[in-house]
């Protein structure tokens, strides 16, 4: 055992986080600090995780707690962390999504350097997303090796939960109608004051949210609630302030948008710009959670702030289109390359 006093610069370069000194907002580096903290603790409150990461990194870089909090939220959405009631974050098992083309998408709270993926191939980090391109000579070995380290290899469909979630089609709407047979009384969502409801209408081939008379017959409605979150409702026609309704969760509402469009004969559009290597997908509507997970495993968000544009390797375009058309009824529109 040896004890030595070290200066800040030396120790920062030794532990390999000098990158944070230069760019303290680097999502990939911050994400790995967060993963290390949550995995080592097993579980911890989100606020404590963020505070500790800021504190323990302080000798190397001054992290902005808001940025760290945002990265933490991205990790939760990506499935690297599991959030439990009370804002407690739990470490998650290693799940490797086999996305084809000898490439896999890594989901786990384990920091990247613990995964030792370099044994199998080239690992790259894009924000909080981690992918590994398997070397040809490791093709037959990586799956058993993942299992041996306590991980599991799953298909994109299993990762997305396609076998557990319904498609956005007529049967989905029929199920909503069946639930609507036992509705909640009109106006009961407005205990804290009237809400500005807007209804989904299909007009001129477009899905639009409209208020007032333009949406009189709309069945899917939404409004900003007291705390700024969206509140969603399904009715026989007309806003839930005057009509009996079925309250929907955000994910159910997202699925219903596609189902309504499909039923109306004006399905939602998937715009695609086919390029040499990566094609660009754009879906103007929010994807339901399962389809979002599916696409996020196969593609990279081209514009993470909007969450509506995706960059997808050419080899995976066919599989992605097939799944989205089948499940959401999208119609594919080729756009010219700009």
């Amino acid at each position, binding site marked *: *055992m*040896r*004890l*030595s*006093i*070290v*200066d*800040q610069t030396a*120790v*920062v370069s*030794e*532990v390999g*986080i000098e990158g944070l000194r230069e760019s303290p907002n680097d999502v990939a580096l911050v994400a790995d*600090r967060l993963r*290390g903290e949550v*995995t*080592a*603790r*097993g*579980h911890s*409150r989100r*606020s*404590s995780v963020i*505070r*500790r990461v800021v*504190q*323990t*990194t*302080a*000798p*190397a870089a001054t992290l902005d707690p808001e940025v760290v909090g945002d990265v933490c939220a991205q990790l939760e959405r990506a499935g690297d962390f*599991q959030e*439990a*009631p*009370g*804002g*407690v*974050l*739990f*470490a*998650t*098992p*290693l*799940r490797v999504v086999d996305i084809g083309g000898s490439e896999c998408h890594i989901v*786990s*709270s*384990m*920091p990247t350097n*613990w995964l030792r993926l370099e044994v199998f191939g080239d690992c790259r980090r894009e924000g909080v997303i981690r992918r590994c391109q398997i070397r040809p000579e490791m093709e037959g070995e990586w799956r058993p090796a993942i299992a041996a380290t*306590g991980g*599991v290899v*799953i*298909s994109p469909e*299993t*990762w997305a*939960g396609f*076998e*557990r979630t319904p498609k956005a089609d007529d049967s989905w709407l029929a199920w909503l109608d*069946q*639930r609507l047979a036992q509705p909640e009384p009109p106006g009961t969502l407005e205990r804290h004051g009237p809400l500005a409801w807007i209804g989904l209408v299909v007009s001129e081939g477009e899905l639009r949210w409209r208020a007032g008379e333009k949406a009189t017959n709309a069945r899917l409605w939404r409004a900003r609630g007291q705390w700024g979150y969206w509140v969603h409702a399904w009715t026989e026609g007309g806003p839930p302030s005057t009509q009996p309704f079925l309250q929907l969760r955000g994910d159910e509402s997202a699925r219903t948008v596609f189902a309504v469009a499909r039923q109306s004969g004006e399905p939602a559009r998937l715009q695609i710009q086919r390029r040499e290597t990566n094609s660009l997908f754009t879906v103007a509507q929010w994807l339901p959670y399962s389809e979002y997970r599916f696409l996020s495993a196969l593609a990279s968000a081209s514009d993470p702030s909007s969450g509506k544009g995706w960059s997808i390797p050419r080899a995976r375009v066919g599989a992605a289109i097939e799944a989205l058309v089948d499940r959401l009824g999208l119609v594919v529109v080729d756009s010219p390359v700009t």
Partner: protein
Amino acid sequence: MNAVEGTVANWASTRRSFDALVERVQASRLSLDEADLLRDSHWALGQDARLREDVRLRLTPWGRWIRASAYLANDEIFGRLHDEPHSSLDVQDALSAVAETVGRWCVICSADPRLVIDASTVRLSARELSDQPLLETDLTGLERYTTHLPIHTLKAAAASAPAGEWGGRAQEQIIETLGWVQVTVPGRPLNRRMFVARIEGESMDDGRSGIVDGQYAVFELWPTGSRQGLNVLVRGAFSDPETGTYAIKKYVADLRDADGRHQRITLVSLNPDKARFPDIHVSVEQEDEVSIVARVVHVLAPSELARKPKPPRRPGRRDLSATQEIFEKLSDFSRRFFEGMPTAQEEDSKAAQATWTSELVCLDAESGGLHIEVGPLVGLWSFIKQLRVESHESRQQVLASNARQRPVRVPVSAAGGPWTWVPVGFEDDPDIDLSGIALSGLEADRAHVFRVDAAGVGRRIAGSTLSRGQHYRLLVPESVWQELAPSAATAVTMTDGWRLWGVELAEADLGPVLETLLQLRLDVGEGEGRLEWVLVPPVQWSTSLKGQPFPCFLSSAAPVLSISGPPVGAEGAAEVYVGGPAGTETLSLAKGENWFVRVSDLAPGRYSVALFYDRTRVAPSYAAFEVVKELPLPPRPEGQLSVGGTAVNIVPGSPVRLAIRDFGTFELSNPDECLQLQVPPGWPVRVLWREVSEDVLLTLNADEDGRVDPNAMVKALVDRSRRRPVGDVVLDLGELGRVVLPHHRRPTPENVRSTVRDMLERLGETVERLSGNYEVLLPRWFEPLCAELGYELEHVPADPDSVPGHYRVCKLYRVERQGRAIRRSPRRLLILAESVDESTQEVRAWLDEACAAHELREALLTDGLRWALHRWDSRVPLKVWNLKMVIADEADFVAFLRDAAEGV
């Protein structure tokens, strides 16, 4: 001196009768005792005299008297005895040396407990001396072997050549000596073959010999004459378990043979534990290989050996060079931190109960503030499934299985105490006593301080002094907070009105904070060192059995400790100690107040860290960590389910379907025994009920051990399965897979009869009275009764003009399992009527029309109590069943069910 004396003489506060005494005191180099001075000259003559009446004399700090103008030289002499390698000083010489420096008459007070004045010499008293010998090197030839002996290690002495080979040289030239030490051997003069050595090992410790490990003894080299019965230092071709090829033993030989030789020599260990300290037997052939190097002459008592003084005590200072003492403190900390607790299997449950703890901890406001932390309750009776914490305003339960294994926290209100723990279901059992973990309430007239530990948990402190550099949470009663100045710090108001105030005393400018703390009658003392692990992330945080967290690092990583604390003015004024499996290392901190210390080259094992300042006002800081060889295993991506004794593994991609069972039967069972689900910790599990569509019954997250609450799951299943005869329970683990648990309840005629009888007793008269009032009777009577008969009831909007009287048409559906699918299909119409008896032809025709309209062949006609089955196009008189009648006879009831029910 004369001027001083003259001045004193002129003062009125002298006493002429003391003149002779004063002269005696002035002539003395030693202080004198008042009683000795006054007894004969004054007190024996009945005079009430005290030396304080004369200013020519003054009192020493030890109650003796010296002349007022003399310089008391005790401290200087005490210092010399400490600093110089002399066990004693000549009093006259020592006082003269001091007088030269101070220019005054010097005296020494003999009552000073630090010193012993013996004839003309002064030495340190026994309490000032350590156990170490005082080694001297600068000796006169006269002192050697007269008052002083050389001191050797036993090993060096044992390796020495026989005296015959020395020639004219003295032993200290042959054996490497450590120095000289003054000794006294009662009744024996010293000689040139004698030396002093420290005894090693316990083999000669029989409680009487005095030859005890660590004691010093006088030896005499190469003894001549008979050695029989002597304790000797012997070396040879043997292997002593303690010292190897040399040892101190008692020499015992058998009788000499005809050639005058011993056949057998035994080197005896006096210690009776022969298993640990065996005797050494030397045969006649080996005799030449064994040498008797020296004999033990005398074991020295502490008073017979000149000893080193203890390090001087400096008030407010800590001796960082006393590393052994600090190592022991570090070792104590490590032992306490990592110490084990009784295991659950321990039979002595009383011993296990003694370790049970419960304490108030304070988390941040977002996490709910004040909590009670209980556990681990090792050895808690296994039949106790839940524990309840009760106060005058709340009752909350925790799973006993969790509390048995680890600390569990329950949020409580600060105003809610005192709190007691109760074993749920065994409240009245006098043998189950949880009073030891009861907690008293928080006093509502003062602030309560919680110091935040490395895990972010505020632990309550008893004192009212906070340390700089630390993080605290204060819980302040509303009334106390309102008395603070308006400029007081901002705090979060908890639901009970108490304020939760987080205080980080690391900030440079603490002005307003200090002001508020003072108003709360709290003080801020000198800072403490703060130890934090930075930059190198631990691979795991473990928890000691006392619930204290500590980090684990990979052995390939060198953890970095960030140390901050009160400023260190000079190198060596603060030191870091790290103790581990391979010993303890020390590092002096350089001048400053923030340091990074890297701990490298670590072997796997448990370590403890201490930070000591040389100022005693700065309390030592401790930390602990562990070094592991390999990364800990991540949670496994799978689940294990056990349902009524059947266990299955849940893995991604392959849904598991179990055999059909009636989940209503779980109502009477212990939830722990009928349903157990283990998944990765914190993992969400959706419990779905699937018939034609899917309902989410509830979503649960596994606890920290990966256990999904069986009580909540069983309750949800029982509630639903009691109402629904058929359905699939789906436990959905997301991408980790799902399990389908098919449910089918087939009620028996007895069950149905029993339920219907209950309903009749409760509502029979009401149904009769409210006949025709369908809006009231439908939810209360018809829907539950039809559910018993195996149907779901659905209202049918009917054209009022087409209904011949006061009738209401409903449709009866049946939910059935068909293979793996569950289907719901219409089976009959239910026609509610005011009277069943008046079923005219006109009514029968209308019933046919209604059946045809809904494509059904049968309709049940009822007024609530009387029931009749109409078949399409039949004009056979209706058989009317009166529930009040048929309920009395089992056969009649079965006949009624045959007409009216399905699936029974």
